[in-house]
């Protein structure tokens, strides 16, 4: 599912206009915009008018100027694209429908048409549209209620309230003393620490859980099936005891399904600290699906990069992230692709290079196969999975990259030599993970850059040597970058 599925087509187009402008230094010709959107002139004119009307909310902080030739975006320093997305999302009827469902658990068509001031047919159309996207979560709106596995319903709401709906709608809850107490109890029971950055995530989840707790006939069939390898898991057992004891204090009946939901959530998202998680990895069953895949993928990655062994703390960190990715893949269906991620994804190849992207796709293929899950082409969970793997691989290559020592040994007149060496150093300074200087004999280097085609290259004591064709040429620079990448792996 994508964020724009909560918006109407023209709204998505308007947001695209903003995106295009941001990506093109704030200005784009009218013609280029037409080409990009593939719409008629009348349509684009309408969109620009509609944008102008909507942006009046920002009191001249944001506006789009069209001088008959170019379209230009003017935006105040304190406004970002996120604010603009927010403005569109706040007006979305589909978001209001989900909000209403969450707050009231159930609606009648009459109630909702009155509340949203829309016609019955329009409401039906929006529900039908929402259902077509909720399908990947395995849930649907039927007879005024959300139907499906409880895990999937809470997981969807978690995404919804974390990334779609304005967080401030839940802010009163975060300050709720009962919520603070609940979080404290969780820390006490599990003997873990919940860091401030993880608290918000956890309180969103707990709030959703609290509002769902009294729903009758919750479905846990799929969850129970998936939990079979975890019934003896020590963390699950602690959570089960905590949940049973907690709810025994209220007039609320729960079964182990409730404990299972919380167990999955705690492992699928960064809630525990890396230290607490590490303690858990020491006692968890290594043959259970997630742990087994963690190990398999970690080894695959280590082999791919030809690392001999990861430093201890880095290995812990990698397992921490892998467990989140794999727990999500193993237990959940569906995901929401956010705008900001997609623009990075679109640029992924430029940023990280083809090899890494291809490798990340290969790993997700392995994971899907090992978990025996059906992989649809348009599955957002898998797309986000690839994105997460890419980030993990990047993290790993940044942390594993040693600082390469590069020496520049130009053979020419002293004056040129000094100037050109400095220029070369300047040109190469944006490259991460290198230290570059003028060559000094008796120092160790990983790479020597020289223009001397005749002298004996064996004098560099095993360092790799690259002979520059033309100092400062883009051809040479591309070759040097390739060599650096090779030396790093």
């Amino acid at each position, binding site marked *: 599912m994508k964020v724009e599925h909560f918006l109407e087509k023209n709204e998505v187009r308007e947001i695209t206009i903003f995106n295009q402008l941001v990506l093109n230094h704030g200005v784009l010709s009218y013609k280029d915009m037409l080409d990009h959107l593939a719409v008629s002139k009348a349509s684009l004119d309408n969109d620009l008018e509609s944008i102008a009307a909507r942006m009046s909310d920002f009191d001249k902080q944001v506006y789009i100027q069209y001088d008959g030739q170019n379209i230009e975006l003017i935006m105040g320093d304190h406004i970002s694209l996120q604010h603009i997305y927010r403005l569109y999302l706040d007006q979305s009827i589909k978001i209001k429908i989900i909000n209403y469902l969450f707050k009231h658990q159930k609606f009648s068509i009459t109630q909702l048409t009155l509340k949203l001031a829309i016609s019955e047919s329009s409401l039906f159309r929006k529900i039908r549209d929402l259902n077509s996207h909720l399908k990947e979560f395995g849930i649907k709106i039927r007879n005024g209620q959300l139907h499906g596995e409880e895990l999937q319903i809470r997981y969807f709401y978690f995404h919804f309230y974390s990334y779609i709906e304005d967080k401030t709608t839940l802010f009163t809850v975060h300050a709720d003393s009962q919520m603070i107490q609940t979080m404290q109890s969780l820390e006490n029971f599990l003997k873990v620490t919940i860091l401030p950055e993880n608290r918000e995530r956890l309180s969103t989840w707990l709030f959703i859980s609290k509002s769902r*707790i009294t729903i*009758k006939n919750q479905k846990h069939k799929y969850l129970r099936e998936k939990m079979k390898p975890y019934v003896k898991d020590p963390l699950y057992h602690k959570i089960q005891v905590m949940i049973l004891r*907690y709810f025994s*204090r*209220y*007039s609320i*009946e729960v079964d182990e399904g409730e404990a299972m939901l919380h167990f999955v959530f705690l492992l699928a998202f960064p809630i525990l600290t890396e230290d607490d998680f590490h303690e858990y990895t020491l006692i968890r069953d290594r043959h259970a699906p997630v742990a087994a895949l963690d190990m398999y993928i970690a080894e695959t990655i280590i082999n791919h990069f030809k690392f001999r062994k990861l430093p201890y703390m880095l290995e812990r960190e990698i397992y921490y992230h892998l467990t989140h990715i794999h727990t999500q893949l193993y237990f959940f269906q569906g995901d929401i692709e956010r705008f900001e991620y997609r623009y990075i994804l679109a640029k992924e190849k430029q940023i990280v290079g083809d090899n890494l992207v291809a490798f990340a796709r290969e790993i997700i293929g392995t994971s899907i196969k090992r978990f025996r899950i059906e992989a649809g082409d348009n599955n957002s969970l898998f797309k986000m999975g690839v994105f997460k793997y890419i980030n993990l691989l990047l993290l790993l290559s940044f942390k594993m990259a040693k600082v390469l020592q590069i020496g520049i040994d130009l053979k020419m007149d002293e004056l040129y030599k000094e100037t050109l060496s400095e220029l070369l150093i300047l040109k190469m300074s944006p490259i991460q993970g290198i230290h570059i200087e003028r060559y000094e004999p008796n120092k160790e280097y990983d790479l020597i850059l020289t223009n001397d085609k005749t002298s004996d290259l064996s004098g560099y004591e095993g360092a790799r040597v690259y002979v520059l064709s033309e100092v400062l040429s883009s051809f040479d620079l591309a070759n040097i970058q390739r060599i650096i990448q090779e030396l790093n792996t």
Partner: protein
Amino acid sequence: MKVVIIGASFAGIAAALEVRKHHTDANIVLLEKQATLAYIPNGLHLYWGNQIDDLNAARFITEEQLRQHTIEYYLGATVQNINTDQKIIAYDYLEQEELVAYDKLIIAAGSRQLSEKIDGSAQDSVLKYKRYGEAQAALSKVKESQHVTIIGGGQVGVEAADLLTKQQKKITLIESMDYVLFKYLDEDMIQPLEQKMIENGIDLRLGQTVSSIDMESNHNLTVRLGDDSVISDAVIMSVNVRPNLPFLDTRIKRHTDQTIAVDRYLRTSVEDVFAVGDCIQLSGPDEDMVYIPLINNAVRTGIVAAANLIEPVLEFKGSLRTIGTSIFGYYIASTGMTEAESLFTNHTIETHRQKVPLTSLPHSDTVILKWVYDATTHVLLGAQMISKANMLEKINTLALAIQTKQTLEDLQQTDYFFHPSYSQMMTTTNLVSWMGERVDKDES
């Protein structure tokens, strides 16, 4: 003033009697859904324990006593709805719909034992016997059964297991937590009891949750737990109780757990409407709001609501969840916070568990006591006891100490009698390091 009370169990009756005490001229009307009056919940246990000859004797008040207090009562009256705007209650009585207006309303509709998670638990063949009619049916069913499965290892479930074992029944007891009576005792206190239960042949299924109960063609019942199942002649539901309030006006606010929200004076969100007993949450051992459906709370809340009818004068002091019972040859009592429950609070606690003789005589009976107290202030927060001698009354001393926020040091200064036949050098309800034998290794 017309005071209508919905429910004539402990809370409702206590409220009615107290209203009469405060308002001699009030018109008091009790509406009770059951056909009989003032049956002691789980009075069947008294019958099984041979403490009464007839189930009908399990009554805590008679119709005659109510009449003496000029309290009007209607048995078999089922409330259909409450209109708090017009202050009118509609109820079915003798197959007619009746209306009654009120000036003040007290909701004391109690609770029922029903599971929404266990498929098949609502069928009649699955026994619940909190109420008189249900108890009669359960009595005959259990009589003809050899193997009885009890779902829920709380006080009711364990008592039933004990009483039915004495009748030579084969008992399977299923509890979803790791040990029985977990609300009242810590796991380290329960060992002697569980050991005794196993010696008595109880098939104890701990840490297991029932998913469904199916009636077989031979009228046996199959209780399913995960991949396992138990087949028996009868099944007793002794799970947690919950209020059942389908008649409530939506103006009366409720908590997430569907209990009625009340303030310290037991007033609901609607003026002139009060709620008591098993319908509400109470401030618990740590003064946080919890659900503690115990008879002593029902009676006390009934009294408090009655005192506040005209204006708020008496705050409800909360509940320490004090219990006492006798099971499998042990007397067991608890009050206040347990060590396990302390994890839900902000208290840093210490605990101390010791075995002390009850008298100064040789071969005196002993009691194992567990103290839970604030690590810094030494204010007593909770106490648990288990003994083969009847020391139940002592828990009330400790409950009073907790309620009045006594420290361990205060308790040592309390003036108690000494008699070698009945007490020892320091009275039992003292934590004295040099008395008795410490049974826990280190303080947590």
